[in-house]
């Protein structure tokens, strides 16, 4: 029983993996459907009032999915990651792990890696579902834009898990960690409101799939954000590990 297997069991033996796949999968399958039939739904619910919506485009189908995935999906990813990374929230468990593991890095790395991997897999499954559903119901999406968007979304989720690790190194409780991590992730788009600044921030990657699919931007436009996210993820993990190492139980 290694620490890597422990994290695998944490995902599959608790509802974590199922919850991630279910949420992203649900949005991936439902949002394009709702987008395709929103005119009919509005007509049915408007009790006779005439409301005319523009015809749904393939980009709209993906946009709806991305909107939900970057909000509710992100919250769930942070919750799942926090539950794994807050090993100091229970003193008895922290003592068991810390007095036996060779280093704090041994504890952090599997928890980060498997939480991030689970988030990315769930996100990709949801995105593939949205891609398929959109293609069937509304119209085809450009493959290059979709693949680029999936790359950007996945990198952003990995960054979000790293931010959660940092939050776990700042506060001990799971609830506190979730709050701090979400506050940081919400603050980033605000800080990046000016476009010249925003394109360098990881938060720019959250909406990248929509921009890439509707042609507003090309993948190189997100190069700075991808690079900053990759570097920041490594740096944040290093800082989190140092902070966790210096923490007393």
């Amino acid at each position, binding site marked *: *029983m290694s620490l890597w297997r422990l994290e695998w*069991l944490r995902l599959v033996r608790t509802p974590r993996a199922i919850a991630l796949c279910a949420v992203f999968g649900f949005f991936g399958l439902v949002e394009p459907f709702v987008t395709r039939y929103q005119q009919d739904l509005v007509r049915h619910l408007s009790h006779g009032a005439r409301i005319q919506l523009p015809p749904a485009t393939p980009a709209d189908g993906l946009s709806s999915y991305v909107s939900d995935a970057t909000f509710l999906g992100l919250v769930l990813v942070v919750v799942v990651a926090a539950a794994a990374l807050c090993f100091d929230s229970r003193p*008895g*468990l922290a003592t*068991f792990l810390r*007095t036996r593991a060779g280093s704090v890095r041994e504890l952090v790395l599997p928890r980060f890696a498997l939480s991030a991997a689970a988030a990315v897999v769930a996100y990709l499954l949801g995105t593939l579902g949205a891609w398929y559903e959109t293609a069937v119901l509304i119209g085809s999406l450009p493959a290059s834009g979709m693949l680029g968007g999936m790359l950007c979304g996945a990198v952003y989720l990995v960054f979000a898990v790293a931010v959660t690790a940092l939050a776990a190194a700042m506060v001990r409780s799971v609830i506190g960690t979730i709050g701090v991590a979400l506050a940081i992730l919400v603050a980033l788009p605000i800080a990046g409101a000016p476009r010249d600044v925003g394109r360098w921030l990881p938060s720019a990657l959250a909406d990248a799939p929509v921009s890439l699919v509707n042609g507003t931007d090309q993948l190189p436009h997100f190069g700075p954000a991808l690079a900053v996210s990759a570097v920041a993820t490594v740096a944040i993990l290093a800082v989190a590990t140092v902070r966790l190492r210096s923490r007393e139980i």
Partner: protein
Amino acid sequence: MTGPLVTTSGLTRDYGGTGVFGVDLAVPGGVIYGLVGPNGAGKTTLLSLLTGLRRPDSGTISISVGRHRLAYCPDVSEFDGWLTATEVVGLALSLAGGRKRGGTACGDALASAGLADAADRQVGGFSRGMTARLGLACALVADPELLILDEPAAALDPAGRAELLGTVAGMRGSRTVIFSSHILADVQRVADQVGILREGRLLYQGSTQDLIDTYLTPCWLVRIAGDAAGFAASAARQSWVTAAEPAAGGVIRIEAASLEAGERGIPALVASCGARLAAMEPASADLESAFLALTGVAG
């Protein structure tokens, strides 16, 4: 018993008046060392410093075994509830770098902790006592050279406590055990060496029996053939007697100023009174009495 396996020098961790202060610990190899003290005396802080969970403000710690040869069992063990007992112990073995001990190590450790029947159960459903036993199994699985137990019997029922103390006593000579407890009878039963902490300071360190001998009030229960009340009155007038009073069953309880004074004086006093000495035995000598004499507080 060999040279010190664990030593500390001037170990201090100050939490604003509480903590540990200037502790010079010396734990010989192969002994069972009982760390006793009232609540808040600093026992858990001292053990946390030894295991590296906390850092000292000053002082040094020297432990002559590698990190993987040390196992610590906290007073409240916690584990991920969705793991089975075997998986938890397997994780402990793996983290201690003990994979090569073979496939029976986990089962043996669980059996020695009395959890063989619960090996495949998820630990989330364990009682507090079972969780404490699981903590002990995790500590034992890697065959540590130094085992540190913080209040190991606190969550156990009387039968479980007796079993645990038997297990600890059986480790004498094969590994070094440091265990803290506020149950002095437990410490007296198994500990060769004892350290007494009070308000963060080590008041006594040495052999358990020496502590009892040194700090116990010299006291005897004397039975004579003759006038017990008159003998008690005569004894009370002796300069070396600090207290003499009749007890139940014709026994006289005599406290002396020193061990020697009592052992020499009581037979002489019996003879001078013209009585015959039927019995003379020391009042029960236990660690609790010595602890109270040393600290002046309840444990």
